[in-house]
């Protein structure tokens, strides 16, 4: 019989790690279980963009809140997390998109997120390798990038410092009422947090999360070629609309001088193989915005699976079908950003403190009530 824990977190991706960190900081005894090793799933495949996004008011609230938490954490992160405050440039191709940039600026301002609008000349100066003739961009200086696997490990390490324990290579077979079953072990606890990402439905049937595949390409080192995370304004549409496949221009400078080139979205189940035609479309889109990338050497490609819910918002809160069960999953492409906000929100809910943001839009019960895509 394993010792009793206040909380067992299932999944040591960045969301599970952030939950463990926040719960242990609240004084709870926490055990984290992972079938493989920390940060080895969706976390390992992610770009690591810490970004404020405004697909919905709830998304804006959670990302802005998380951005503030990351900024506070940044000075204490180990070097290998590679936190770089490079900012995001939302690039507008034409005047119509520039209008959207202005609207975006005022929405961000309402949430206390400072932004600047760059003229075409300012944009060209900020990013000389973007193609000429762009209409401008919205600069979000507060956005940053991290190296996700080591971000997850840093959060776990903080949890361990708070007294949490972590067991890797332990596959959870089932989650019961205030207990977790892993192999021959029954681990009893007051609450279980299902933070298994895209695999969460395997342990909690009924959770409407599907894997949404993405591709990334990484280049050799070209320091200074790209200075901000560059995202086309149309990215939001690509992320929001549940089409079978879409691509959007999204390039990130890494601390090493390498560049990550994204992004793609596909609904193909768990097929992790490289889809050559999607990679071509993705690179074409990137070349359209940054023609000079053509001569960059691409050294590796990979895929990953975003845990996606019907309304693109994560599930954070209690799962009323099972006593003691809490969900922290379904973060789509924003899990690296929203991990820390999720952890804090969940810890506040579990310990009965008043959360900093309204938890209602993330309540798992909304999917039981049958909220579809809006």
């Amino acid at each position, binding site marked *: 019989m394993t010792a009793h824990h206040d909380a067992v977190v299932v999944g040591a991706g960045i969301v599970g790690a952030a939950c463990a960190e926040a719960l242990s900081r609240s004084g709870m005894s926490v055990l984290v279980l992972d079938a493989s090793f920390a940060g080895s799933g969706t976390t390992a495949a992610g770009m690591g963009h810490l970004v404020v996004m405004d697909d919905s008011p709830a998304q804006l609230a959670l990302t802005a809140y998380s951005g503030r938490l990351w900024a506070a954490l940044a000075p204490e992160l180990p070097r290998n997390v590679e936190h770089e405050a490079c900012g995001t440039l939302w690039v507008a191709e034409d005047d119509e998109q520039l209008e959207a940039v202005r609207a975006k600026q005022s929405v961000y301002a309402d949430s206390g997120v400072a932004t600047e609008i760059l003229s075409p000349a300012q944009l060209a100066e900020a990013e000389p390798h973007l193609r000429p003739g762009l209409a401008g961009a919205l600069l979000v200086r507060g956005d940053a990038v991290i190296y996700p696997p080591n971000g997850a490990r840093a959060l776990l390490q903080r949890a361990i410092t708070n007294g949490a324990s972590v067991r890797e290579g332990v596959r959870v077979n089932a989650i019961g009422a205030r207990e977790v079953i892993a192999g021959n072990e029954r681990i009893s606890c007051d609450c279980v947090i299902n933070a298994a990402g895209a695999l969460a439905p395997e342990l909690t049937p009924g959770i409407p999360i599907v894997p949404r595949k993405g591709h990334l390409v990484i280049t*050799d080192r070209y320091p200074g070629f790209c200075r901000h995370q560059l995202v086309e304004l149309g990215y939001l549409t690509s992320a929001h609309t549940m089409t079978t496949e879409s691509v959007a221009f999204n390039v990130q400078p890494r601390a090493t001088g390498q560049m990550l*080139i994204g992004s793609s979205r596909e609904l193909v189940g768990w097929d992790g193989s490289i889809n050559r035609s999607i990679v071509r479309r993705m690179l074409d889109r990137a070349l359209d915005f940054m023609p000079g990338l*053509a001569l960059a050497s*691409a*050294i590796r490609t990979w895929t990953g699976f975003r845990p996606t819910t019907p309304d693109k918002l994560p599930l954070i809160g209690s799962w009323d079908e099972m006593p003691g069960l809490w969900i922290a999953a379904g973060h789509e492409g924003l899990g690296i950003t929203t991990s820390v906000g999720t952890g804090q929100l969940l810890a506040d809910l579990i310990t009965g403190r008043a959360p900093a943001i309204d938890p209602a839009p993330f309540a798992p019960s909304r999917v039981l009530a049958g909220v579809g895509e809006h």
Partner: protein
Amino acid sequence: MMAPLAGTDATLIVADVAVIGAGPAGIAAATRAAESGLRVVVLDRGLETGGQIWRHMSGGPVPRMAQRWIAQLSRSGAQVIHGTSVVDVQHEDAEFEILADSSGSALRVRAGRIILATGARELFIPFDGWTLPGVMGIGGAQALLKSGASFAGKRVIVAGSGPLMLPVAASLANSGAKLILVAEQARRSAVMRFAAGLWRAPALVVQAARYRARFLSTSYSTGTWVTAAHGADRLESVTVTNGRRTWREAVDVLCTGYGLVPNIELARLLGCDTRDAVIVVDAQQRTTVANVLAVGEATGIGGEPLSLIEGEIAGSVVSPRARISDALLRKRAALEIAARRMLDAFALRQELRSLPTGGTIVCRCEDVSYGAVKDAVCARQAKLYTRVGMGPCQGRTCMPGLDFLLAWQPDTVRPPIEPALVSVLSSELADDAAASILFNSSVGEAYQ
């Protein structure tokens, strides 16, 4: 000749057989296949036909046998495209489509059969100081010699394992280097047993004797290996041990390498089975994937004569009237026995697993130390946490050594298997792409 490229369009070549690699095995395979009337295209990374062995290891002008084969290849009608690295391959219907970075341009090759002749690269085992200027690979030293670099007057140690140390030591001695020591890690008894068995391959005995004669004044020490290299800005000395005694030698250059590692990335991308890091083939050189054959070092380290015979067999197997002479099969069997004896004789000793210390740099691209990776549960975890093997060389240099040290299983293979320009990966065939004219149109009709 290749058509000029417009925009990001790829050039297309359609062939019956695509041979990957123009070393001895690829040359023999392409020659026999093309002689039978097939349209054969050979893609090779190098700028000259001959592969690593005839390019680097011959220690002088291209040997006569190599010249003979290269001449036969050019008469056969096979087309060799140099400066071309294969980055991806896909299987559609009964046809393969290969994507290659050909001197910075995209090249697509469609072929019904593929013969993998991807060769091998040197195995490096990291130790303290191995990244100092003055420490180089054994093959790298041979390449420098061929490119005209002078080792005259330099104090040189050649240390590592395998028969390739002999020709390099001979070349170095020839070029005026002061060869201090040739250190073979394998035990004397094992090396002697191997040498005694060479009567099966008399040519090798003569060759080995000839190499040895060139550095007679230098000691060839078996059961001896280098444990560390020292120097402030460049190599000044090395620590040598034979397990009983450990001493220092002042040197300017250390040439080191622990044998060869088969290049199996393309085979793995195609889905071919591999065993012990070698492509699995049957008696006809067929891999476990239909219409994919493999020859030469990538199917097991066996040396140039075995590579040539395997190439000849594969080239005949894909021919319209496949006929393999019994003599070839018998020769292959004998050479395979010799190859196994060689691998046994030069098996790496356990002590080498403790060569690196915690502070030893294992991955030069990403500056990762052995201490940072040695407790990882698998290669993927080490890569994700430390970036080991994630730099420009994509682990080609460091991962085989780490696989040896830590018994890691190789990680998954994804395209591109070699770094490729973004323009190459994003290239598409133009809608009206016509196969570039490489072959006389009547030639391919023999293949029905």
